[in-house]
């Protein structure tokens, strides 16, 4: 029997597949229908994301003031960035902030999640309490912390003065937002306020660690630290990686709070961050081309750091399914 008239069973299957394979016309119709259904998202994505991204790259190669047509200048904006002291200062400030805020945030959030995961009574209440601060809008938060950090009448300095007096010291607390040396530590300290968001994610990760692993560790005579190191940390390492990457993205886009708390990066540009520098160039100095170049450098930095984090994670992050 040939293939056309062979085993009826085999021929039937082949026929079904042949008949079931849609023709080009049907495929086109299917594609069109699919596109039609996702068209609202597609239009939004094209107009408000893909097009601006593409144009921002083009503008980064132009002298563009928003008010007049862009004029192509090649890599001049990028060359200017390399020589710009203020950009370097903003970059340094942003890296310093990230270097402080990211590890501290991760440590604190993970620590709180560990405490909440000990089976404490009313955990849902605590979880809500820790999460609530992260719901406060950035501008309201900035105003609140400006009062807390006030060098003269701020609650933090009043408390620190009382502590210093109790210890018999005459040292006076710093003027947090007026002293160039203290403004970045103050902002790092303040960033811990929004740690509740990460706590909830860590807590979910901790509750997902199989109990039998702890039981096995107990049978092996592991102490608390050994269980944390050999069971908990490996099992929640994907969650730590996720939070770490989100923190990298968040800290390099740090804008609203320094914009309100330290206008112009004052004092003496000690709190001048990349995103604020970018905004100033785009909307105050009317240098949209230069600001676009800055945005692409910022993107590149975040991209490289994210890739670096992912690369480093290969040896330290353990996935349950792998």
């Amino acid at each position, binding site marked *: 029997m040939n293939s056309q008239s062979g085993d009826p069973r085999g021929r039937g299957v082949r026929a*079904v597949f042949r*008949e*079931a*394979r*849609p*023709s080009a*016309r*049907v495929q086109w*119709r*299917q594609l*069109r*229908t699919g596109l*039609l*259904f996702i*068209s609202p998202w597609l239009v939004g994505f094209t107009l408000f994301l893909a097009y601006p991204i593409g144009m921002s790259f083009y503008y980064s190669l132009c*002298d563009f*003031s*928003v*008010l*007049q047509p862009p*004029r192509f200048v090649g890599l001049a904006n990028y060359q200017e960035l390399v020589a710009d*002291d*203020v950009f370097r200062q903003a970059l340094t400030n942003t890296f310093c902030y990230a270097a402080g805020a990211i590890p501290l945030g991760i440590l604190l959030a993970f620590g709180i999640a560990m405490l909440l995961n000990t089976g404490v009574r009313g955990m849902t209440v605590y979880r809500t309490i820790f999460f609530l601060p992260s719901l406060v809008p950035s501008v309201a938060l900035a105003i609140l912390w400006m009062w807390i950090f*006030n*060098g*003269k*009448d*701020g609650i933090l300095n009043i408390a620190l003065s009382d502590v210093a007096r109790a210890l018999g010291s005459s040292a*006076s607390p710093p*003027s947090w*937002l*007026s*002293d*160039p040396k203290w403004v970045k530590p103050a902002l790092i300290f303040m960033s811990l306020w929004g740690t509740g968001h990460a706590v909830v994610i860590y807590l979910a990760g901790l509750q997902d660690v199989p109990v039998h692993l702890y039981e096995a560790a107990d049978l092996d005579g592991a102490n608390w630290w050994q269980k944390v190191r050999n069971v908990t940390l490996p099992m929640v390492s994907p969650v730590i990686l996720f939070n770490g990457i989100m923190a990298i993205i968040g800290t390099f886009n740090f804008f609203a709070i320094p914009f309100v708390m330290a206008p*112009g990066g*004052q*004092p*003496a*540009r000690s709190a001048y961050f990349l995103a604020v520098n970018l905004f*100033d160039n785009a*909307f*105050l*100095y*009317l240098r949209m081309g230069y600001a676009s170049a800055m945005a692409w450098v910022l993107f590149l930095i975040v991209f490289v750091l994210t890739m670096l984090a992912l690369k480093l994670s290969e040896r330290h992050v353990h996935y349950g399914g792998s």
Partner: protein
Amino acid sequence: MYPGGAGSRKGQFESGTYEAYKLKRETPNSKLGALCAGVLCLILFGWFFRPEPAPADGRVHVRYWEKWTGFEEDAMRKVVDTFNARQDRIYVDMLAVSQVDQKMLLATAGGNPPDVAGVWDSNVVVYADYNAIQPLDDRCSRDGVGPEDYLAAYWELCRHRNHTFALPTTPASVALHWNRQKFREAGINPDQPPRTLEELAAFSDRLTRREGGKLVQSGFLPAEPGWWNWGWGHWFGGQLWDGRGHATLTAPENIRAFQWVKGFADRAGTRDLQVFQSGFGNFSSPQNAFLAGQVAMVQQGVWMANYIHNNNPGMDWEAAPFPFPEDRPDLANSTPVGLDVLVIPTGARHPEEAWEFCKFVQSQEGMEMLCAAQWKHSPLSRVSERFYREHRNKRIKLFYDLAARGRTFAPPPVGIWREWQDEMKTAFENIWTNGQAPADALAYAENRVQTKLDRYQESIARRYE
């Protein structure tokens, strides 16, 4: 995969191919879906680009964006209402807009600007350079609006490259304000303010008080309110540029000025000053350092009387021209001048009607109505007796005289003024907070400003070519 179970599939296939089945099943649905989506898109498109409905009153509606809020907005609204009441052809719709300079700019770039906007004099140059506002020369000459109508210092702020691009709304000059009660407490005659900058420093030392080693009152602080930190050199005879494109921040007069400024920080102690200044409240509040009695003398504009009235009405205060260096009596009566202005953006739909409104604001009646309600002096060269008689600022003539006959100065008319101002601010903070030597801070700022200035001028020149 196709829908339904194996049984149903078999039935379908018996009567034709899967392709036929798909066409039969999907064609009506996809056609209907496409039709619906198309109609929806058309409706949305039509709604988005719908023509503006004609106003029911048959008048041309002028869209006017203004930066003012509160009592300043109320003052302008009174002028707008008066204009509207006298018109049967034009109606001005006034809208208070925060960050009006940025929003007007984006609206202009987007091709949908307001017909008239109230911005600051510092915006005029850059907007003019980028063709974001219309020159008003033809309209001015047609309707007889010219330099003879205004105080020269203010008229100049409306012009750029020999063209008029804006018209004034409310002006400002600056003077020394002092708290007479604090003078009495320090044993200083409250009727004799410091005449020279050296006297000002000496008075300040006498008025400065400490309690438990902590600063509780300062005589004078150059950083309070800190709005004219760019201009300290002018009080010592310096200039920020040579008028031809070269920044002159390191001129000896400018360095001397900032050394004088630094003297206040050195005498009070940087650390103590930081803590002391942290306790200052918002300008427009009873916690304002001058109104709360934390600073006895302050450099402030014509508007200050209003804020004193609102926040500390019982305060015993006076105002006088800001002092001058002892060895430069020719610099007496120096004052920075500033101006709120009206501009007609490029692309405005009703520029002629907007101009009619601008003209009304420029009339003596409109201008005095506005300036009196904002507690400011008039920028016009002719002022009615009634304006002074009924004005609530007891020192209004002082501010007018300073602007009319004093030694006035303003920021350099360059499009990068905003960047320049930020460089000056940073230089000031480095001197005031970080203890940097004025010569170093100014040299650094000059270098940065010059680079920006060269770049901007080159960019503008290339565009005009």
